[in-house]
């Protein structure tokens, strides 16, 4: 894929949050945590003066807020489902079984009644462990169309679920970013798939790193040789720069193509063998009674 100007890559486009009514999914695995990128998205949304609601299941409020600047906290609402997600104590602020579009819309309307908010779910894997995938997908779809939510950003640990479940959630998403560890320490690789409203799908891969202030620096395209070879690679001419001539003139090329190769059983050879020319010996064969003679194919080797 031809690269765009470096400052306007797919990843930075997604960070600018112009995708309203969409569902952005960040997929990670054990080898690289997607939470750093998730925090970058939260930071970018807060800097744009958006109201952000976080449904926190995987990590505590302190851990999630670590690194975010404190003056934006008034726009950040953390719904604590980390402390007691299954209701084992009698005082649970939010349990995982309350994950439904009605309850979530209610929560969102409590704090930002007029403006549609950005909903961040950390993480969907926790929810999928206790709620059936169909119910989760249904809830996400209803939230997307509901109007109370401007964008949904979800984190999913793809190595914790079967491919079918991961595939179903990805289908719902308008953009999917799969993060993997990069070759150098601080860098990571992002594989981005974006589905536009017209149905067009664009894909891209970018190497990025996240600084301490949660800004994302998009570095470059991955350049490892395992990738698809570049078509602009020049063909090396082996007949150049030699002390002897290996090139063919047109007449020589024609003669070369006309030449019949010795061990290839071509049509011309077949007719030459079958209809031997004048002067060559003929073989007359008269079979005995005990011979198994097939009139049509005496030697049983004709390609008839």
């Amino acid at each position, binding site marked *: 894929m031809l690269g765009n100007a470096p400052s306007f890559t797919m990843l930075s486009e997604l960070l600018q949050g112009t995708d309203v009514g969409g569902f952005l999914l960040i997929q990670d695995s054990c080898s690289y945590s997607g939470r750093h990128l998730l925090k970058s998205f939260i930071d970018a949304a807060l800097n744009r003066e958006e109201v952000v609601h976080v449904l926190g299941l995987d990590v505590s409020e302190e851990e999630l807020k670590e690194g975010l600047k404190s003056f934006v906290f008034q726009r950040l609402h953390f719904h604590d489902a980390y402390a007691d997600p299954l209701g084992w104590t009698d005082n649970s602020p939010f349990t995982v079984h309350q994950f439904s579009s009605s309850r979530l819309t209610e929560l969102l309307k409590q704090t930002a009644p007029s403006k549609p908010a950005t909903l961040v779910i950390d993480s969907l894997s926790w929810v999928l462990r206790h709620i059936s995938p169909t119910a989760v997908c249904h809830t996400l779809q209803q939230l997307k169309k509901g109007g109370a939510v401007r964008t949904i950003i979800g984190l999913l640990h793809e190595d*914790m679920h079967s491919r079918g479940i991961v595939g179903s959630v990805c289908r719902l998403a308008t953009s999917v970013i799969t993060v993997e560890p990069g070759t150098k320490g601080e860098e990571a690789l992002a594989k981005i798939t974006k589905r536009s409203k017209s149905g067009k799908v664009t894909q891209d891969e970018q190497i990025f790193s996240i600084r301490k202030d949660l800004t994302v620096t998009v570095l470059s395209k991955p350049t490892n040789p395992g990738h698809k070879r570049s078509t602009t690679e020049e063909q090396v001419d082996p007949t150049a720069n030699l002390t002897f001539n290996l090139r063919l003139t047109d007449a020589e090329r024609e003669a070369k193509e006309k030449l019949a190769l010795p061990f290839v059983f071509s049509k011309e050879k077949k007719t030459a063998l079958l209809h031997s020319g004048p002067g060559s010996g003929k073989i007359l064969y008269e079979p005995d009674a005990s011979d198994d003679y097939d009139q049509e194919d005496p030697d049983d080797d004709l390609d008839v």
Partner: protein
Amino acid sequence: MTRRWRCRQTKPTKSLEENENLQRSSELVRLAMFTELNSILNTSPESFTPGEFILLSDRQSDASFLIHHFLSFYLKARCKVCFVALVQSFSHYHAVSQRLGVSLTQAKEKGQLIFLEGLKESLSVFLPQEENAGHQAMSFLRDPAAGLRSLYEFVQSSVVESSGGGGASAEQWGPPVLLMDDVSVLLSLGVRVGAVLDFSHYCRTTVCSQLQGNVVMLVRCDGEAEEDDADDEGSEQLMRGLTHQSCLTLHVQGLPTGYCRDIHGQVEFCWKKRQSDGQHAPKKVFQFKVHDKGVSFFARGTSRAVL
């Protein structure tokens, strides 16, 4: 002239201070056994990062030496330790800890250590004879499908006790620590992977976030790492789930080239959290050799047998 053996008498003139110094130096010698590990982890019993979930894992190897290290480490750091030991008896851990310079019996008597001996308690679940406090913790053996809520409640009661203030006789212990050896045995007892992950989540919530203590769990895998079978209800999925929850993992495995007498294996250290002191490599690999009274760690290729 034959040698005469006679009883050694301790000189009464030795002062108390000298005795203390002697004790401290012998302790230091024992501590020195794990100083390499402490320096890799950048910790010491005097100062360690609170609120951490450390995952120890092994594949076709034995990481239990790390459990013994952490047990003696946190006891020396004067933390209140809750040890859920499901695979070995109390006397086993006691014998090994003595070599590392801590006495588990003493710690238990002082109230510093709460020890759940899974093997013994499970017998009383199956053959109930009298009402036992440990009963409830292991009740998941009767009904594994119900989950580990009762085990979590046992852990909660053990660690919350310490910060509850206590009576006049209670000593002031440091932050609580939960140690588990090992978590994968729960899968063999019929508990689902999801239930174990819920249990570890709740332990993390209570011990790490609420009480700023640490949690150390050991998970064991057998067989090769399966890359594509993500919904396999087994130790691989449990290890992945726990890795997502932890902030530091120590993965022990044998050498990829095979058995070696002088190098018993390698340990891969993975830090998830970005440390505040700047740049650090998120992954480090060291090789180790287990001795009688400790373990020595060295960078790859620098074993004394090779140099």
